[in-house]
């Protein structure tokens, strides 16, 4: 199987879907050159400027126009540049796109993908580092996925583009250069299908995106002590594969939930409730959560490092469930 990094895997998905469906186009700031993370690099050479649109720095118009195009026959893929900037298009995402099917009684299809480069790293600072997926999980009418590997990223982006409803794809910017095997054949990954990234019998760690890798590192370390950690990646948050999460926790009887976003009212908080509801009688210990503290993401490396959840935090959390 070819080995690609996640950025190239996403690029491949875009090429495959743009070849398959002439209605698909990409729009965003500086995407002709492939900025800021290389995902759209070279697309313009194959598909031309009609389908790879460098937009003005007008997030509301980029996202709003994508909806206008989607409900009238095109299939836009929006590059949000940094997910943080979606605040400038919140009305378009939350009031317009998310409600486009429901509020009008199902008259309109809105097949639209929002690519959301997000996450802490390299001193991005307060406006370039945030994990904002919880806002959209909390917005009915949107589907949300969050890949951790190149193969999943390619497969989920393909599914998102083919979906008749709006889908947000959270791409952790710290994973763009992380490599992995990507199948030769076109392999869409369905929404609502979790994946066990490492099997184990003692503790289930439910982790997303970069925290999947931190959890795998934690699992390797804990294995040396004889603790077998199962790492489960939900891959999509809406819809959520509750069954797969429950299946794992019923076997291990212990659960850690690891995410990069802030602790309060987060995706992890919701997943903890899901596990409580589905597996209360199976749990032998309280669920433990790993998340960032409730502060904005700071700039200076030691400060940034302090707020970034990592493998040490997962190890500590797993130990806590075993006390």
């Amino acid at each position, binding site marked *: 199987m070819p080995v690609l990094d996640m950025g190239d895997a996403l690029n491949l998905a875009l090429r495959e879907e743009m070849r398959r469906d002439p209605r698909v186009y990409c729009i965003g700031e500086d995407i002709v050159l492939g900025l800021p993370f290389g995902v759209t690099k070279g697309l313009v050479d194959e598909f031309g400027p009609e389908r790879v649109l460098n937009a003005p720095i007008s997030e509301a118009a980029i996202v709003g126009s994508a*909806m206008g195009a989607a409900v009238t026959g095109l299939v836009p893929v929006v590059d949000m540049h940094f997910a943080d900037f979606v605040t400038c298009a919140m009305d378009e995402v939350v009031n317009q796109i998310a409600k486009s099917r429901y509020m009008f009684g199902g*008259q309109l299809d809105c097949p639209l993908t929002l690519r959301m480069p997000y996450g802490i790293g390299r001193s991005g600072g307060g406006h370039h580092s945030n994990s904002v997926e919880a806002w959209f999980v909390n917005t009915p009418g949107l589907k949300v996925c969050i890949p951790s590997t190149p193969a999943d990223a390619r497969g989920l982006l393909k599914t998102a583009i083919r979906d008749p409803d709006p889908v947000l794809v959270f791409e952790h910017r710290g994973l763009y250069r992380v490599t992995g095997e990507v199948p030769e054949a076109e392999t869409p990954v369905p929404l609502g299908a979790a994946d066990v990234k490492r099997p184990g019998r003692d503790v289930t760690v439910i982790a997303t995106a970069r925290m999947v890798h931190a959890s795998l590192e934690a699992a390797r370390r804990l294995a040396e002590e004889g603790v077998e950690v199962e790492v489960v990646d939900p891959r999509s948050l809406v819809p959520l594969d509750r069954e797969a999460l429950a299946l794992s926790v019923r076997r291990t009887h212990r659960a850690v939930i690891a995410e990069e976003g802030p602790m309060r009212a987060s995706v992890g908080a919701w997943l903890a409730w899901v596990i409580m509801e589905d597996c209360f009688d199976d749990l032998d210990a309280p669920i433990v959560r790993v998340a960032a503290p409730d502060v904005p993401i700071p700039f200076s490396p030691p400060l940034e490092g302090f707020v970034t959840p990592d493998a040490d935090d997962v190890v500590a959390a797993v130990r806590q469930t075993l006390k």
Partner: protein
Amino acid sequence: MAPGPDLLLQMYAGMLRVRLFEERVRELFANGRLPGFLHTSIGQEACAVGACAALRADDYVLSTHRGHGHLIAKGGALRGLMAELYGKANGVCHGKGGSMHLADASVNYLGANGVLAAGCVLAPGVGLSIKRRGSAQVVVTFFGDGAANRGPFHEGVNLAAVWTLPVVFFCENNRWASSTASSLSAAGGSIAARAAGYGIPGETVDGNDVLAVWEATTRAVLRARRGEGPSLIEARTIRWVGHFEGDAQAYRTKAEVEEGRRTDPLARLGRLLEARQLLDAAHAGRIRAGVVAEIDDAVAHAETSPLPAPQDALADLFASYPWSR
């Protein structure tokens, strides 16, 4: 460029349809028949009707919270609209939208909107798909003078201009952003003048003169169809009623409302048609009777239609249902 007799009579009937529809829904609202909030466009009919008369059936319209008139002028069926205002299961949005949040895809009416200027950024995308299809359609996005102070107005006009998209930005300036005077909230004294900053035509018209509205919109539409890009029209009109039904309107004078009635766009077109001997009292009576019958039918249909089943609140979120949590 002037509308022929048939079109003039069509616009007369269209304005009357909007006027009588809005008067009826005010009455129904006052009698407790309609849930929610209600914003009517009485006095502003020349804008909706004059603009939509310049459109083809396959052109698109994006509208506002004060949007019944736009849908009616675009050809929307009164039954589906009225049933929606009643919150009935067979409303055009099955009761999910209501007055401020309804669309009628069958006539390319892509939605009223509860958020001001929201349509200004949706419109360039509609224009983009038109341009890709090469279908020479046009999209008109209506908004008010209040909305022209929101960012999406500027972002949308800029994008449509820089990409030469077939969009008509149609501002209905009724002098009031809710209860705040346009003179106290919109700098520069002219919305149309803002077009100059984006290098597109901007035109102010008497929004109570349906001919002037039709002519200005026709110019903008033809320009868009030729692939020459967007235009901005500011139609100055007067809202006869409050921002919403129940608005005491303590912020404005009776004189302004009287001014509105003096410049009544419907009566004005009626006088013109009489002067041209295209309409007499008997003919006008027949037109009115026809419109009243349509509205009676829509009300009767809505009154006798079923309410949605409560659990239908969970339907239509996504294309496939049920979906996993």
